[in-house]
């Protein structure tokens, strides 16, 4: 009995138990300050589905030793281009959503391949390079959004201006298409986004399956001991390249899923900060910079999004002010900071 308990603490880690306990407290307090549990739960589920796949995209690069994917904006950009292109043709419904992914994936593959070439030349400094790649790609796209030859007036600045808008609504295209797929309500306030969560589960399953294949084992070995991998017949550069491509592609798909749930497409500076919440979530889930599991992703995204949903609303209601947004920013950045300090510990 004691052994089981010890093992649980060892695998879960104190940090996660404490955060979970804190969440439990928030949930207990919530009803007394006038927050409905069912609404909150529903919010959390939607957010988990929305962000899950992007967090999952961290795994391949971590496992191959490329570290945390601060270059996620590349995948995000591919997802945005895919979405905008699909909308350019006025495709709506599932077909539109599907075509957004179809356009996004090849672009993600190309971007991922180029990104991998850079990373392979900067072994040991991957994460710093990744951050710069992420930021400069966003800057580059700020220019491109203005120049790309999109014609659909719904996407452009009003009255025949050139360039895409900063915020494009998905209303009438594929808004909440996955969220609503097979979804159900309990009472009037609890909404279960079945489709999105199903897709997240499916993505997790595929990821798990991938690491059960021969190539998956080679990728894992590349990250956990490159010398071993090389001595045992693995082409480590090739594995790293593959991992970066997979991460970028999943990031792109994750972005399309995020958009349908969020309801808007945010161009220009939108992708700038996308990497940090995903990185923080996977670290909170217990991953280190060279080892991450599906469990880390699932636990991490649930904890991160729950705290992000609950803390602002509880504090807001306790203080009876309207500071939800400010508190959300504080909490989110606080958690990112905390998670990044944990990264340093993991390195030792």
């Amino acid at each position: 009995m004691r052994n089981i308990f010890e093992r649980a603490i060892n695998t879960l880690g104190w940090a996660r138990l404490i955060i979970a306990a804190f969440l439990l407290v928030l949930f207990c307090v919530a009803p007394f300050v006038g927050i409905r549990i069912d609404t909150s739960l529903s919010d959390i589920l939607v957010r988990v589905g929305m962000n899950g796949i992007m967090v999952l995209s961290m795994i391949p690069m971590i496992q191959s030793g490329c570290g945390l994917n601060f270059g996620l904006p590349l995948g995000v950009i591919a997802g945005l281009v895919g979405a905008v292109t699909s909308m350019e043709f006025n495709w709506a419904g599932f077909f539109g959503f599907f075509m957004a992914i179809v356009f996004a994936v090849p672009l993600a593959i190309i971007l991922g391949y180029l990104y991998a070439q850079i990373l392979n030349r900067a072994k040991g400094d991957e994460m710093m390079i990744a951050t710069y790649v992420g930021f400069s790609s966003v800057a580059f796209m700020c220019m491109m959004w203005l120049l790309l030859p999109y014609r659909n007036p719904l996407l452009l600045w009003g009255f025949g201006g050139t360039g895409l808008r900063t915020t494009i609504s998905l209303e009438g295209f594929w808004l909440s298409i996955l969220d609503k797929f097979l979804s159900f309500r309990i009472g009037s306030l609890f909404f279960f986004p079945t489709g999105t969560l199903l897709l997240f589960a499916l993505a997790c399953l595929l990821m798990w399956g991938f690491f059960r294949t021969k190539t998956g084992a080679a990728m894992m070995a590349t990250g956990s001991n490159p010398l071993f991998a090389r001595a045992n017949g693995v082409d480590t550069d090739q594995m790293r390249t593959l991992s970066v491509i997979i991460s970028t592609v999943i990031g792109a798909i994750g972005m399309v899923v995020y958009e349908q749930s969020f309801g808007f497409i945010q161009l220009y500076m939108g992708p700038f900060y996308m990497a940090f919440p995903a990185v923080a979530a996977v670290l909170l889930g217990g991953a280190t910079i060279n080892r991450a599991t599906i469990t880390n992703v699932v636990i991490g995204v649930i904890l991160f999004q729950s705290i992000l949903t609950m803390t602002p609303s509880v504090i807001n209601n306790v203080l009876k002010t309207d500071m939800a947004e400010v508190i959300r920013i504080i909490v989110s950045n606080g958690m990112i900071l905390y998670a990044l300090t944990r990264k340093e510990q993991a390195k030792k």
Partner: protein
Amino acid sequence: MFQAFHLFQMIRSSNKGERQISSNPLLSIKNIQKDFYGNKVLEDISFDLDRGEIVGLVGENGAGKSTLMNILFGMPVIQKTGGYKGTVQLNGKDICFRDPVDAIEAGIGMVHQEFFLIPSFTATENILLNRESTQYNFLVELFGDRLQKLDRTAMKERAIRAIQTLGVDIHPDTLVSEMPVSYKQFTEIAREIDREQMKVLVLDEPTAVMTESEASTFLTAMKRLAARGIGQIFISHRLHEILEVCDKIVVLRDGKVIKNIPASEATLRNIASWMVGREVGTTSFRRARSADDQDTSVLLSIDKLKVDMPGERVKNVSLEVREGEILGIGGLAGQGKLGIANGIMGLYPAQGSIILNGKPLPLNNPLESLKAGVAFISEDRRGVGLLLNESLKLNIAFTAMQVKDRFIKRLPGGIKWQDWNELDASAKEFIDRLEIRCTGPDQRVVELSGGNQQKVCVAKVLAMEPKLLLASEPTRGIDIGAKQLVLEVLREFNQRDRTTIVMTSSELQELRSICDRIAIVYEGEIVGIVPADAPMEDIGLLMLGNKLVDEPTHA
């Protein structure tokens, strides 16, 4: 002011120390118990260590020696796995370290089974890490000790002094990454003995990768330290070393102290049988070479091989290995014996030509070497040989899976799925065959004892069913009983499957017991190849670079 107080304290404590010599042992281990999640590893261990005494700690692989030392030294892994029961006393006071830093401050030094050195630092820097000699400068007043300037000359002098105590010849400016393995070991020890307040030194298999002459230098250094009053606990699987330096021998078996006797009352044979719990024979393996062995074809032919392996450079090696033979490669550390196998595997930049089975072998490409039927046991099991955080079964199957598509189930769409049933089955087979002590095929390799990790490395290459097996220090850290077993398994593969073996070892006895011929490497070249039953003196001369043919009797 503070210094005067410190001095006073020191005098007082040393006076007290003298008075207490008769009553209190230096270190006393009492009723230590330790389990890893219910798996009992140590049960009720007690023994003492006096000033200037050397205690030999012996036991089979997995008997719990390293675990006991980790407890003494406060290694974090002990706390993380639930702590331990029992007490440890230093100078009569209870101690329980949560951190190695505490242990060091209390005067306990440890040389680990696996290295704890910084490769990109020089010998001096490693020896004096965190205890650098500093020069005063005014910034210290403002910002504290951290900004004192390093006094390079004083540091070098201290390092040289520490190295001289050991009686080896390491240049203080050599980078650790450029050193042969046994020099790394000496550097670790030099680091420990530089500590002035050191009272107890724990040595966990320091001699495992040393040749005989290096080991005897090392043992001399140990005796010197003992004369300075330092108590030492010495772990080794080379029992003759234990008999040579130790005052007392403690034998562990299955986590219990089986014997605790003065070394004078033990013989090699006794110790071995106490360790294993049964009689250990000392049969020699050498087979009589049958007639048809003589005219088998050449399997591997190496011409003018140059390998740029730091610390083990190969300058110019030409060599022919016949199919089905076991060729030994010996030589002193740093002369290049390890570089040959690493070069053939393509792990370090190489030049020259290698012809395997009539076909040229591409250099600098491990995958091609593996595909051509070469397998390799690395001398560096932690660095190159194992995926420490993965299961035993994946470690064993990994190479065969990547190179030969074994242990794979094909799913529709060409997906190569790992066949865990087969993985399990083969792991279980090797666990039985090599007597690997573990909780099962799913245990992580990092949790195994050093010797059992080595057996996993052996299993890994056997699963490859290679044509040519390059085995570098294949029995490193393996106990006396299991060594026989491993060598037997190697020989069985050699005879049954006609696997050709090139075995590099620092232990001459081992080479002589299993090989057909032995090549001796000196300064990156082969100085001579002798039959395994050549006289020891000849081999000894070769190792020092004296070619037998040129000057047969001079030395």
